[in-house]
């Protein structure tokens, strides 16, 4: 008779275990970067450029130096003497740490003051006199490539213009042939406006150079501490083993805390020069105007269609505005991230994508904001195109999708852009969503409402996205392969500690990694502590972003636990005095196959590893696993939104939001649902209000939370989640897939499609995000499309 433990009871796979990390957060005992105070610590503030493009004629910091309590004023000139005025980016470009020659965007770092307290440092920043000579400003790709445009990156050799890259993928000739055979060609031009991940906690660091040991410790808001350690070693030319990066609790990341920012570098240099700890905590405006923005991409798509609804081919062109420096982390082989994952869920014979990246006088970025390297843009583009194509054909939205989906029996499926899909149940997900929302019934109500002058709409977004980079053959950042790792130590009493190279920022790793170990070893989750974020103790990993933690680091946790189990089996055979082949495993216990009552628990094996190991066996029960995934994971999602649009005001209200997510095996269903709801709220935000734009002079509009609108509990709609479709990932050790960003990726199109569906028949084909009431009202009233970012209205 089995004596296996009840997995849910011990907090294993599938348990909605309450979060371990909550115990400190609900008491106000979190330990975020700004909560850390070190003895003798000084404070750094940054002086930023008020202009978007200007030559620096002079910087006079003499008054700042005179202010009592000021210890150091750093300028670009001083950085240059140490070869630190510029730093390499994660995409083979360079970025100014402190400006020397020119400022290239509003908010660029010009000088730093280190003082006794942040108030004095801010006072001193204001005392620095910078003489600027304004230059012509470029704020979009069209201006960047215009005849006679000023060259923003005149610091670079071999950079005669503002083009960063031209990149293409797919089969151009085959796609041309598909278009020749088309009955109907559907075309749509879209703009995905610039946005900002905007975690509530801004960026910051405390650099602590210890002169006695020459060791540098940096506490900082980073999603990828090991990458930072490598970057600091290369940029500051410090030995890597003398650098310790500690990423304490992080108040949200969403991709914003992946890049290396000048503030980090300056605090490090200041600490080395002053031999004291130096804290830099960015303010919100600094965060919004200078750190990694997202999106800002112009898309032009064409779809070749057969009259019966079959998609024959897709052509995509895109222009990406990267700002003044190409500084976002992208896999090195893919210049515009995984934009070519667009249309993966649909069986399309031919496709071609051409992308161009350009510089502008805007903050650098293009980061993966809750997104696996540009997949958000890809899926928005895809699902808006799909809706437009179905409308052009006069086909039902759901039927058009169902007809073109990759079918369950067609896996594995190679997309025309080269991705390999391994599994999915796309039609089932769609059906669950349609049933949940009452699709047929809603269409009837929509028609009745329309007769009475009311505008109801329903929007569908169905997509699969590639999450969990690597594999290492195709995915690397600056040549560093995208694998991940886990380290597991089982103590003699059967308690354990697991460490990974990932770094959570709210995803609940401290809870879920323990659940994976619990699933593999039967050690109760409460007996397992999880630690991340300290490069001196955690194994090397690429960090947490792009929904890669569960697919890669989570897989490493399962694999290291299996290594431990393999050793424990040998210990069990020794304790049971049978050969290893006669030992069977059930959750938490090894037993003799022929005598199941004779067994030893995993805890007894752990004790034996330190007290009673067989002759010749290495003592201890510890191991490390590095995991290089064979493929990406491909979660599928169906989001359906219904709205009512008020034609008199352009205001739209969300009636229902239904989410059907197939993310494979759910480690902790409660946490998975939390991730989905968070993503849905961001999707709603993108569609409705959240954008950053610039006026013609390059002034950032959206530099604070009065201008950059984030939805509150009041605006944000309620969500209805469905989890009944589960297609385990065939190559992941526990069948899990990424989920953290799915709803933020697939969701925006559902909201926009719903509003556009409400407007069908009014002659409006597209309104670019954000769907602010005035834009919707203008479209309805004047029967026209609304394109591009909202214009900046000035008083004159």
């Amino acid at each position: 008779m089995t004596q296996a433990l009840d997995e849910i009871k011990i907090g294993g796979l599938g348990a909605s275990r309450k979060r371990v990390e909550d115990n400190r957060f609900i008491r106000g005992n979190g330990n975020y970067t700004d909560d850390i105070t070190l003895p003798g610590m000084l404070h750094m503030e940054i002086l930023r450029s008020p202009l978007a493009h200007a030559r620096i004629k002079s910087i006079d910091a003499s008054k700042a130096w005179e202010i009592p309590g000021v210890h150091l004023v750093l300028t670009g000139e001083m950085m240059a003497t140490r070869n630190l005025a510029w730093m390499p980016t994660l995409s083979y470009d360079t970025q100014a740490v402190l400006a020397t020659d020119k400022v290239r965007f509003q908010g660029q770092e010009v000088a730093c003051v280190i003082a006794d307290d942040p108030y004095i440092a801010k006072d001193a920043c204001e005392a620095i006199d910078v003489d600027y000579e304004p230059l012509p400003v470029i704020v979009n790709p069209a201006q960047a490539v215009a005849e006679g445009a000023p060259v923003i990156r005149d610091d670079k050799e071999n950079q005669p213009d503002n083009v960063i890259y031209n990149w293409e993928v797919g089969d151009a000739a085959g796609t041309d042939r598909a278009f020749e055979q088309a009955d109907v060609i559907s075309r749509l031009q879209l703009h995905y406006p610039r946005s900002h991940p905007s975690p509530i906690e801004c960026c910051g660091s405390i650099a602590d150079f210890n002169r006695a040991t020459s060791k540098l410790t940096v506490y900082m808001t980073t999603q990828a501490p090991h990458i930072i350690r490598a970057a600091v070693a290369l940029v500051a030319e410090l030995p890597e083993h003398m650098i310790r990066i500690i990423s304490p609790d992080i108040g949200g990341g969403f991709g914003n805390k992946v890049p290396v920012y000048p503030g980090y570098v300056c605090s490090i240099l200041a600490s080395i020069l002053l031999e004291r700890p130096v804290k830099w905590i960015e303010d919100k405006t600094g965060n919004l105007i200078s750190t990694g923005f997202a999106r800002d991409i112009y898309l032009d798509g064409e779809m070749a269609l057969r009259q019966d609804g079959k998609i024959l081919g897709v052509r995509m062109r895109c222009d990406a505005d990267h700002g003044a420096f190409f500084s976002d982390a992208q896999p090195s082989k893919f210049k515009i991230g995984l934009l070519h994952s667009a249309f993966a869920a649909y069986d399309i014979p031919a496709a071609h994508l051409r992308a161009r990246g350009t510089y502008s006088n805007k903050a650098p970025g293009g980061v993966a904001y809750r997104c696996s390297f540009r997949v958000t843009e890809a899926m928005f583009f895809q699902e808006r195109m799909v809706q437009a194509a179905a409308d052009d054909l006069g086909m039902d939205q759901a039927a058009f999708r169902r007809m073109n989906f990759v079918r369950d029996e067609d896996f594995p499926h190679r997309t025309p852009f080269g991705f390999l899909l391994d599994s999915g149940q796309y039609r089932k997900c769609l059906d669950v969503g349609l049933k949940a929302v009452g699709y047929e019934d809603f269409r009837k109500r929509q028609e009745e409402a329309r007769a009475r002058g009311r505008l109801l709409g329903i929007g569908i977004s169905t997509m699969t996205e590639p999450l969990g980079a690597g594999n290492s053959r195709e995915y690397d950042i600056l040549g560093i392969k995208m694998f991940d790792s886990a380290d597991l130590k089982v103590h003699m009493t059967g308690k354990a500690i697991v460490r990974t190279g990932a770094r959570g920022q709210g995803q609940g790793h401290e809870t879920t990694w323990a659940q994976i170990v619990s699933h593999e070893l039967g050690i109760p989750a409460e007996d397992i502590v999880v630690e991340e974020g300290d490069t001196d103790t955690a194994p090397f990993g690429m960090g947490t972003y792009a929904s890669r933690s569960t697919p890669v680091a989570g897989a490493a946790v399962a694999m290291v636990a299996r290594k431990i189990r393999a050793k424990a089996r040998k210990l069990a055979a020794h304790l049971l005095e049978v050969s290893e082949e006669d030992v069977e495993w059930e959750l938490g216990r090894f037993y003799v196959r022929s005598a199941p009552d004779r067994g030893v628990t995993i805890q007894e094996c752990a004790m034996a590893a330190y007290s009673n190991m067989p002759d010749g066996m290495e003592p201890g029960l510890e191991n490390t696993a590095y995991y290089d995934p064979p493929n990406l994971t491909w979660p599928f999602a169906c989001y359906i939104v219904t709205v009512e649009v008020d034609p008199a005001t352009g205001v739209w209200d969300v009636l229902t939001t239904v989410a059907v997510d197939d993310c494979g095996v759910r480690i902790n269903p409660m946490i998975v649902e939390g991730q989905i709801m968070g993503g849905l709220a961001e999707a709603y935000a993108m569609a409705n209000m959240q954008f950053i734009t610039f006026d013609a002079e390059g002034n950032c509009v959206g530099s604070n939370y009065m201008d950059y609108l984030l939805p509150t509990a009041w605006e944000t709609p309620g969500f209805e989640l469905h989890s009944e479709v589960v297609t385990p990932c065939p190559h992941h050790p526990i069948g899990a897939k990424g989920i953290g960003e799915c709803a933020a990726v697939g969701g925006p199109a559902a909201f926009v499609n719903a509003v556009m569906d409400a407007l069908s028949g009014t002659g409006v084909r597209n309104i670019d995000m954000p769907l602010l009431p005035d834009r919707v009202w203008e479209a309805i009233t004047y029967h026209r499309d609304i394109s591009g970012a909202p214009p900046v209205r000035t008083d004159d």
Partner: protein
Amino acid sequence: MTALYADLGDEAANGTGEVPVRRIRFTVNGERKAAEVEPRLLLSHLIRHGLGLTGTHMGCDTTNCGACTVLVDGRPVKSCTMLAVQVDGREVSTVEGLAMRGASEGGTARGVGGGGLHPLQEGFKEEHGLQCGFCTPGMMMAAKALLDENPDPTEEDVRWALSGNLCRCTGYQNIVKSVLWAAAKLRSQAAG
């Protein structure tokens, strides 16, 4: 009486005589305090760095995000937009005081491993009302002010009461459920 705040600099003794310093007396989480502060010092900085109560977070410095919400004389206040000198003679409550008050409001006795939590703290954990945890203290303090006034709020009441507090992780749905969970528990304690 001790002058508080270690790392806000040394304005009083910097020898210039230019920075005026004011002495204030106030109560924090039931404990009486006195401090010498620059008139421009923000309340949030006094709480975080002067008092070392780092559970009150600063997100935006501009009264928008609500991460720094505390109660002053029982009313929710964004402490980044109040000067420290303004709490002279007043009572400040922060997230660190929630658990202590849990006992007097019928919470279980304080103890190791979860004892003594305020029902709001329990509710946020039970209903997964937090992810990164950065907005959570402010959310709980704003919710506390709501429940003190309205022990039986509707979902809409909760959403309105929290509309000055931003969260980027949760999508708010579980935050609302957390507050309703706490409200129900507080009501049942009051009844029982």
